[in-house]
């Protein structure tokens, strides 16, 4: 097997008394998408900043394509692209001017810059807006331009810090497709996210981090199967009916069943199949819930299972906006 594109060993970073990274190990194979999954404050951005040579680590080591981030930062910078958590673009420049600036600063040969900018604007559906100042762009357009900017120097390794946070569903799906295309072309992507679904959709491998520690490192399928359950929750007209439902659902095969007043909850690691089974058992017995909801395993469930505490993922996020 070839040397990993990203190698992280016992990496630590402290801010005063706080261990933002408390000794993490990661390996990302070349040409794959690696997901770093964790709630706010887990240490995702800190990890990306260390890998992108922005922050110096306090301990351990990190290499990108065999180059040490501390000893050879210039070499690392020539091999990476970074799209940070907040769209880092100049609002007074047009889309094209932003990309050209990054082309110059990314040390592209002069003649290559304009064609590269045009190509990326086209690819990210920004050609029409290319010559408008960024102040006039929507949030989704800015985010796309930010990612386009990180791609100008054709970096073989790309870091995306929460690339879809704040995007609507359409923009998110478009961005997912673009990320997949990049990887098809051979780029290695490390992306951070707070959403299990996103990691599941994109990544070949996922590390779950919490409090600066990697608490799981696996394929998304295994993580979900081991840790997250699909939950079917039903409310019934009265407790008697809920009791009858419970009787029908209990017994082997279905997963764990809980009952509380008029509510019955079935948890199973068999994904959506569990819903079909539940309805099949009710069929013919006249047991019908008033309401029914299906909840896919979430990051919270993964955290519950892994750490026994809930993921504290309040969206408001102070110091980080800097």
């Amino acid at each position, binding site marked *: 097997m070839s040397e990993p594109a990203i190698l992280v060993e016992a990496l630590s970073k402290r801010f005063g008394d706080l261990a933002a990274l408390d000794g993490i190990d990661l390996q990302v194979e070349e040409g794959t998408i690696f997901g770093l999954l964790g709630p706010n404050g887990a240490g995702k951005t800190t990890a990306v900043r260390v890998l992108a040579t922005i922050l110096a680590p306090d301990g351990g080591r990190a290499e990108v394509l065999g180059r040490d981030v501390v000893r050879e930062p*210039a070499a690392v*910078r020539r091999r990476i692209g970074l799209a940070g958590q907040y*769209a*880092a*673009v100049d609002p*007074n*420049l047009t889309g094209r001017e932003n990309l050209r600036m990054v082309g110059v600063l*990314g*040390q592209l040969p002069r003649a290559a810059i304009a064609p590269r900018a045009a190509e990326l604007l086209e690819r990210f559906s920004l050609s029409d807006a290319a010559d408008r100042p960024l102040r006039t762009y929507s949030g989704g357009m800015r985010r796309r331009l930010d990612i386009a900017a990180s791609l100008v120097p054709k970096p073989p390794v790309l870091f995306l810090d929460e690339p879809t946070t704040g995007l609507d569903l359409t923009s998110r799906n478009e961005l997912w497709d673009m990320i997949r295309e990049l990887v098809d072309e051979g780029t290695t992507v490390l992306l951070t996210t707070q959403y299990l679904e996103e990691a599941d959709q994109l990544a070949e491998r996922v590390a779950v981090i919490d409090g600066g520690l990697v608490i799981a490192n696996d394929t998304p399928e295994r993580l979900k199967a081991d840790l997250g359950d699909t939950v079917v929750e039903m409310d019934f007209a009265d407790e008697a009916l809920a009791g009858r439902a419970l009787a029908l659902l209990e017994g082997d095969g279905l997963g764990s069943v809980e009952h509380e007043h008029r509510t019955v909850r079935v948890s199973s690691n068999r994904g959506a199949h569990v819903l079909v089974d539940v309805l099949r058992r009710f069929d013919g017995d006249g047991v019908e819930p008033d309401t029914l909801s299906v909840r896919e395993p979430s990051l919270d469930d993964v955290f519950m299972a892994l750490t026994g505490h809930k993921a504290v993922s309040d969206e408001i996020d102070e110091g980080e906006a*800097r």
Partner: protein
Amino acid sequence: MSAETVATRTQVALDRHIPMGVARDTVAIVQRNLIAYRRVPQLLVFSTIQPVIFVVMFRYVFGGAIQASLPPSVPYVDYLMPGIFLQTVVFGAIATAIGLATDVKSGLMERFHALPMARSAVLSGRTLADTVRNVFVVALMMTVGFLVGWRIHTDVLGLLAGAGLVLLFGFSMSWIFATVGLAVGDPETAQAASFPVLAPLVFASSAFVPVETMPTWLQGFAAHQPVSVTASAVRALTLGGPAAADVLASIAWSIGLIAVFGTIAVRLYRRAV
């Protein structure tokens, strides 16, 4: 030979190469900052309206009173204008603080840190762009001065040398305010933090009134601080009289400030993300 091998070889070659792009990177940052002045003219208006108001106020409102403390051969407007030029570049340097703080806050600084660019370009590109802006603003204020009766008693060389001193001094102010901007990392705070730094520099100086009219406890500071020294130098160059001592003192102040605050600003930049 596959495309991949070529790419790898290019990269290896680049790794050995010392980036020759310092000038190219700096020019790119200067351009980007100047575009902002063109697209957001409020930034320029902010730094010109105020000095124009000061010209009108001091020339026509306070000028008569202040004239009494000047030699009769020096009309107050000729004394005032060098002070106005300095006020303009000192206040204008707030834009350096605000601009850098904005880049820190927006995350653009983070992008710059992760690019294989010259580390010095972000700061020098900012301070040089603000110097280019000063060229325009000082030229504009000279025009305003001529319109209200300002006259050169020496020659065009004296005028150009005086303008050079003002621009050099403005450049040193940009480094002070670069430090302020990086230290606070937030544009609103940068603006608020800048005023207490520049108010004593501009007002406790000989920019608008002779130092001899001030209380004795203030005169020591007011006579030797860099705004006064530079104002005296520019006056000597435009009114005539011995200029060398003040010119040298002004240059020394500017270079000293650039050295000290340039060092601090570069340190702050390294860890300002």
